[in-house]
């Protein structure tokens, strides 16, 4: 077993993410790696294929800042609030640049991650039948016939991101990473990835991991950055809650191109670290 290097967030992103790559920042409401996304914006990454089940605010920000050429996703909204205005602007008006879509349902994208995590070239589900997704995204959706029953099912190609980035509560000093609480498709996105980079709330001597916990072995992790508050305004169970008020406030910030750009400049581009970002956004106690 090789212990992954513990790097600064800046170095971890600079070392592993390059323009044009397929990158998945996963986390379902919980443990969304905002700090990592902001750092990619600071480093002016471009032409990325961004993969996420629920693009959420972090991809709204990355899309609005021109990082993305393509989006692989299954539901693109501000949960419980409304639209992702930057995602909409990119799709509806190609601002700041055109955005290609590889669009699925949750069940479908989960199958694609699971196939990638399992070393299979495709996955199978009972779904998509009778929907226009099948024609809108023809190259990524096929049918397949069960050789035993003759049933016709839907086949989807495996997802194997060049880099998956997760935020997790804990790593131990060997680099084993604990996932806990709502994990979404984090495990599958991690196992599917060619390279896995993780930000964590803290490093501990001993993971708070019962016997059947979700632990990612150290030898599957390429780099770890310790970033307290790294999921904010998403949350890290047991550390801090989701800032629902920020999600509500984002609706106004993101609605207008100029206001969005100014906010991103002030809060992300002009802060050097995530701790500075948290200070400036007023999220530090």
């Amino acid at each position, binding site marked *: 077993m090789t212990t992954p290097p513990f790097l600064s967030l800046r170095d971890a992103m600079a070392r592993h993410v390059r323009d044009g790559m397929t990158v998945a920042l996963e986390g379902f409401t919980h443990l969304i790696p905002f700090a990592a996304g902001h750092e990619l914006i600071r480093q002016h990454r471009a032409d990325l294929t961004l993969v996420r089940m629920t693009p959420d605010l972090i991809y709204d920000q990355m899309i609005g800042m021109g990082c993305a050429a393509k989006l692989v996703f299954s539901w693109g909204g501000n949960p419980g609030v409304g639209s992702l205005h930057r995602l909409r602007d990119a799709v509806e008006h190609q601002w700041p640049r055109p955005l290609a879509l590889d669009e699925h*349902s*949750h*069940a479908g994208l989960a199958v694609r991650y699971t196939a990638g995590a399992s070393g299979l070239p495709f996955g199978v589900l*009972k779904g998509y039948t009778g929907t*226009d997704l099948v024609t809108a995204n023809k190259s990524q959706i096929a049918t397949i016939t069960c050789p035993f029953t003759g049933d016709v099912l839907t086949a989807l190609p495996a997802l194997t991101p060049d880099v998956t980035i997760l935020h997790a509560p804990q790593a131990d000093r060997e680099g084993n990473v604990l996932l806990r609480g*709502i994990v979404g498709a984090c495990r599958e996105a991690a196992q599917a990835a060619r390279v896995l980079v993780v930000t964590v709330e803290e490093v501990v001597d001993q993971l708070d991991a019962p016997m059947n916990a979700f632990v990612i072995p150290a030898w599957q992790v390429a780099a770890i950055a310790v970033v307290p508050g790294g999921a904010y305004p998403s949350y890290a*169970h047991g550390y801090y809650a989701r800032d629902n008020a920020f999600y509500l406030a984002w609706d106004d910030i993101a609605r207008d191109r100029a206001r969005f750009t100014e906010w991103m400049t002030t809060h992300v581009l002009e802060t050097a670290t995530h701790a500075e970002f948290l200070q400036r956004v007023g999220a530090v106690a």
Partner: protein
Amino acid sequence: MTAYTPDEMMTVAAARRLTNGAVCFVGIGLPSAACNLARLTHAPDLVLIYESGTVGTRPTVLPLSIGDGELAETARSVIPLPEVFTHYLQRGRVDVGFLGGAQIDRFGNLNSTVIGPYDTPTVRLPGAGGAPEIATHVRELLIVMKQTARTFVDQLDFRTTAGFLDGGDARSRAGLPGGGPRAVITNLGELTPDPGTRELVLSAIFMGVTVDDVRAACGWPLRVADTVARIVPPTTIELQTLRALQDRTREAHAHRVRITLPT
């Protein structure tokens, strides 16, 4: 009888559709309110599954998002998201699902993807999420939507989610295992599918609503059942429970989060 809003009536009507003990796949917003209202009133043993992986959850406040910590803390178990869709939904273990959408047609098909053409939409909507497979697999699909002539349309801009497809036996011929839409609950009343043609028919209206109101708020020539039932207004218990739930929810979501950084 206290005054109530159409939203409250809609939520109460949706809640009443849930049988105690049913296993329910819950979406965010009104469905979440309706499911929890049912659980706090006539259906204490309702099993709620949110797609975030929280199985058998009993939140004391409504989540803003589908993956709030409250759902995890009050769940019987928290599982990886892919398993919700494979081991539960696709395996046929979910009784009831709730969906909404931006557009619905007369056969209960839904659009939550785009207004306008897919490649050059005038409005890009959030997309499919869990909807297509929820509608594929649940024994009984409940749809909750405000009814206007713009949302109840003759022709969907995009079919995100299959209801009864072109009606008749089209759904079962396509091999969709679940039962399809059981009812559409609106701010005016309820539409239910004709057992033969599967076309949605106005079968019940709320107090103070006329059949003509409902017809006017529909983008296709709406069929009306021979007898249109009147839906009983919310009871005091229903209203109090719903409002207390929503008050708790507002309170919980109001405060900003402050993080203590290590020094």
